[in-house]
């Protein structure tokens, strides 16, 4: 029982790290533009495929392939914003919402027609298994946790101490005031899309090595990402971190104590319960 519990907590931390990597990107994008970037899950999926091609087809080492995927996805994210979201920036919010849904359909179907609907698994170099107490963990899973900790810590330092990071925070708090003090908000927007998509590429690459990637996975990723975001409080980075951990742990502990058939129900159940008591999410302010 105790061994099983440690195992599930460890698995929960791994999945939590995965959700955090996804939700942090959604969160900074939402903070700056207030748009529901539903295509984020599709960017994560594309990131997985890029790594898959470089590792499985071209024989590039995993870490290098993941770095390439981060760069390409950052560019892809910036391109999505410029070509799809920017034209509707001053339109009613419903337009960005519909554009986002359209993007998901385009990207997912394009990927299906290129790669087929089947799952692919990225070859991972992290094969060794460690035993912690009575729980077992592969080095790939530890790498997922490590990547999340390092990247999120780097993001927090960037946002808190660098001039550009402060400009990102300023823009998310007041776009017009940011313009007035001289911030180029288009550059800020590109930065958040680039960073968010690069984080997504890491999530997609690692989940592709841990489980698999397939063209329609994006929708599911976006759903989970938004569950984390809403639970933690829209636009809040600490909210995305705590929200990701809560959902990762609940899923795994719920599977252990109740049934793994309801694994995905737990995420949304816990979200609903928290929203009943704190409608703006755990770290949400009074609403914008």
């Amino acid at each position, binding site marked *: 029982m105790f061994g099983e519990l440690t195992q599930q907590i460890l698995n929960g931390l791994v999945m939590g790290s995965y959700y955090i990597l996804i939700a942090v990107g959604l969160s900074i994008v939402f903070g700056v533009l207030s748009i529901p970037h539903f295509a984020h899950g599709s960017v994560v999926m594309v990131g997985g495929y890029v790594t898959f091609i470089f590792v499985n087809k071209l024989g590039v080492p995993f870490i290098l392939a993941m770095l390439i995927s981060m760069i390409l996805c950052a560019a892809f994210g910036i391109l999505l914003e410029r070509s799809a979201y920017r034209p509707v920036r001053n339109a009613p919010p419903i337009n960005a919402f519909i554009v986002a849904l359209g993007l998901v359909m385009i990207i997912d179907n394009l990927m299906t027609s290129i790669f087929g609907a089947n799952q692919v698994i990225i070859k991972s170099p992290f094969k060794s298994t460690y035993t912690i107490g009575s729980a077992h963990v592969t080095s790939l899973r530890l790498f997922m946790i490590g990547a999340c900790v390092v990247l999120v810590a780097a993001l927090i330092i960037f946002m808190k101490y660098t*001039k550009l990071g*402060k*400009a990102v*925070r*300023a823009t998310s*708090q*007041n776009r*017009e*005031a*940011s*313009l*007035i*003090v*001289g*911030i*180029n*908000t288009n550059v800020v927007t590109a930065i958040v899309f680039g960073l968010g998509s690069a984080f997504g590429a890491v999530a997609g690459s690692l989940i592709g090595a841990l489980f698999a990637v397939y063209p329609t996975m994006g929708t599911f990723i976006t759903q989970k990402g938004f569950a984390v975001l809403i639970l933690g409080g829209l636009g809040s980075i600490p909210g995305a971190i705590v929200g990701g951990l809560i959902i990762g742990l609940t899923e795994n502990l719920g599977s252990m104590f109740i049934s793994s058939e309801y694994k995905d129900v737990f995420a949304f159940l816990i979200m609903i319960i928290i929203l009943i008591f704190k409608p703006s999410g755990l770290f949400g*302010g009074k609403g914008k």
Partner: protein
Amino acid sequence: MLSVKNLSIAYNGVKVVHGIDFKAEKGKVTVLIGANGAGKTSIIRSIMNLIKSESDEILYDGEDIKKTKPNNMSRIGISLCPEGRQLFPDMTVLENLEMGAYARKDKAGIATDLVDILDKFPRLKDRKTQCAGTLSGGEQELLAIARALMGKPKLLILDEPSWGVAPIMVEEVMKMTRHINEEMGVTVLLVEQNANVALRYSDYAYVLDVGEIAIQGTGEALLGDRKVQEIYLGI
């Protein structure tokens, strides 16, 4: 310093400002007075290019700024202290001031100015690590002015600084404005609804009435003007 010719603004085809002319003389405090909806904020926003407008020319320091992007205004020396203050509520007082100097590159100059400004605004110094959103209305207004000053402006535009500020603080804000003009040599363009206070602290005034300039003159002259008294001072 700033000269606006034939400025018109329309929202969805409805004209709200009808071809007005005005000037903000170098080294002076100029005020635009008008009731709610007279188009004051629209005028400021169109000078800053935050909204679309039509005009013959908008000259700043002899150069046409009709096509200057809003985020480049602070680089050429125009700082706006906007209506409703528009602070960064979840950033500290200190961070808000730092953001005010965002467009500047002279690190040493920014550091000295920060010390100077905190000395000028002791209320802000006491609260420098507090988030801007937790300050009182008057303190927020002072912070917005201080943030605008951190951009080291040649022209400071203050949009409705008495908005949401306790009456006792309104005088303080106006005194500060006069001080900025006289001691720091900054040209000020002030937009106010509170005509009584604004006229006392300004050199030259324009009175706006539904998108047109109805009366203009020195602050002193308008304070004694019957029409201004009737309409705006309620005497």
